[in-house]
């Protein structure tokens, strides 16, 4: 770029203002995130044009028509609702247990010393690895899937809750004590709000883990039960893989899983902003 030309043609640079002008908002910014995915979709579609007509390989236009068909038939929305229901149930269990265990653990070093080794030794065991036990205990239906989800969501929740409670500034507790605030009120009105940022972070990460785990759990649970009864999007994928091989439908499921995960994440972030206006 020629400095001399810029200087003569752009009055702002000529006036000595360097760098982007803050007032001019970048209107293209939201679209930039879509540019690369769009380009890849176009290339993918172009590649598919060269394939034989009866190919099983998935490509964008076919995926889109499958998405439409699965949505119109109600199969996909129903599977989503079933999966989300299990995620909510499992997440709620994890949230309750995580808070009931995490808050006292964060507050008491003795309790921490006792429980931390157990939690830390279970933490590396993947949700899929507890699936056999879940099926043995709960059978192949919803309870097993909910158990897997709760197991997956539990660890981020408890680790972050303990961390949050442990790191509540002692000063705030002392300040409350010097104002004659009773202990239960200090717990409710100092300890909990002060650890809320950590708890909500744990909840968001836990929810992400829960959603990841439900797909895996339903894949496996569905396999065991032969595909008929348990439902859910994970099982739907399994059906399209094992019974009527339909790669386009599998891609639809993958895409939907990703988009739902994104939506959940954004929902939690919005909730965080709402619940913690002081962080804005």
């Amino acid at each position: 770029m020629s400095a001399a030309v810029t200087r003569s043609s752009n009055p702002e640079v000529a006036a000595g203002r360097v760098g982007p002008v803050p007032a001019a908002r970048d209107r293209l910014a939201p679209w930039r995130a879509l540019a690369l995915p769009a380009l890849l979709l176009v290339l993918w579609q172009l590649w598919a044009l060269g394939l034989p007509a009866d190919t099983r390989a998935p490509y964008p236009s076919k995926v889109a028509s499958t998405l439409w068909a699965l949505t119109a038939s109600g199969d996909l929305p129903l599977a989503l609702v079933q999966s989300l229901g299990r995620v909510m149930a499992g997440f709620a269990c994890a949230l309750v247990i995580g808070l009931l265990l995490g808050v006292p653990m964060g507050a008491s070093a003795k309790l921490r010393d006792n429980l931390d080794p157990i939690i830390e030794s279970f933490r590396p065991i993947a949700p899929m690895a507890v699936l056999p036990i879940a099926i043995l205990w709960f059978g192949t239906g919803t309870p097993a899937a909910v158990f897997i989800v709760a197991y997956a969501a539990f660890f981020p929740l408890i680790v972050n809750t303990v961390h949050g409670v442990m790191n509540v500034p002692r000063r705030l507790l002392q300040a409350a004590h010097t104002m004659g605030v009773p202990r239960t009120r200090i717990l409710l009105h100092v300890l909990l709000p002060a650890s809320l940022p950590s708890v909500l972070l744990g909840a968001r990460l836990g929810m992400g883990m829960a959603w990841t785990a439900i797909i895996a759990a339903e894949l496996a649970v569905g396999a065991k039960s032969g595909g008929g009864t348990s439902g859910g999007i994970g099982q739907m994928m399994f059906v399209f893989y094992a019974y009527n091989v339909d790669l386009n439908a599998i891609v639809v499921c993958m895409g939907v899983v990703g988009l739902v995960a994104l939506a959940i994440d954004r929902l939690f972030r919005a909730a965080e902003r709402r619940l913690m206006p002081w962080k804005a």
Partner: protein
Amino acid sequence: MDHVTPKLRLQGVSKSFLAPRAKAPTLAVADFNLDIHPGEFVCIVGPSGCGKSTVLNMVAGLDTPDAGAIELDGRQVQGPGAERGVMFQDYALMPWQTVAQNVGFGLLHGTPGQGMSPAQRQARVAEHLELVGLTAAANKYPHQLSGGMRQRVALARLLANGPDVLLMDEPLGALDAQTRLILQVELLRIWGETRPQAERRTALFITHDIEEAVFLGDRVVVMSSHPGRVRADIAIDLPRPRREALRADPRFGEFAEHIWSLIRDEARQAIGGLTPTTPQEETTA
């Protein structure tokens, strides 16, 4: 003033701490004696680490003395209590609460607001926000305020709780020099130095700033360190209300100079200098 029962009495107070990785406990405060009379503003100065904050924490009930007694109105202090309000150097404001909520925290959750209706609490909060000039910032969060404003919120909260004794642990310590000078005058106004002493609240103020101590205090207690003891107890008989012009008064300078001469050696030692001196009790009254 010796005929008056002291508001606050510290008698032979000692406190040791076991520092991390240390084998033997360190004596932080040893045989500390101090009487504070009703309505008096007493400043404690001393080199860093001399145990001044430990003394204040024990009076607040946040620490328990190993030996000795702390009495408020002749009754032994046990644990924290709202009649001894504390203002911390880091303000200790609840970040999730607005300025008004912070000022009303003790009224809503603690003993000071017992028996108050919500309207009474609200009025009390409004009155104290007005007192510190923060009515316009009532709905802001602490992180949106400057250091000086946060300090005033903490002061409003302290006073809204209506404590009998004000305990202040370097409350101006985190502020820049100009803000400090302005807030010293503000603090005295809000404390009520224009009122007769009987109507003033008893205050214990910790600082490492000698001139601040002289400007604010009726008395300045000089501490020596390792262990923390009373080195000198100096009556500052400068007239109240104290104005900015006082800082230019030769007597103000003499007090500051005298106190510095008591602390200087230890302060030098603390930064790795020379000449240890034997601590020596000295009283100028």
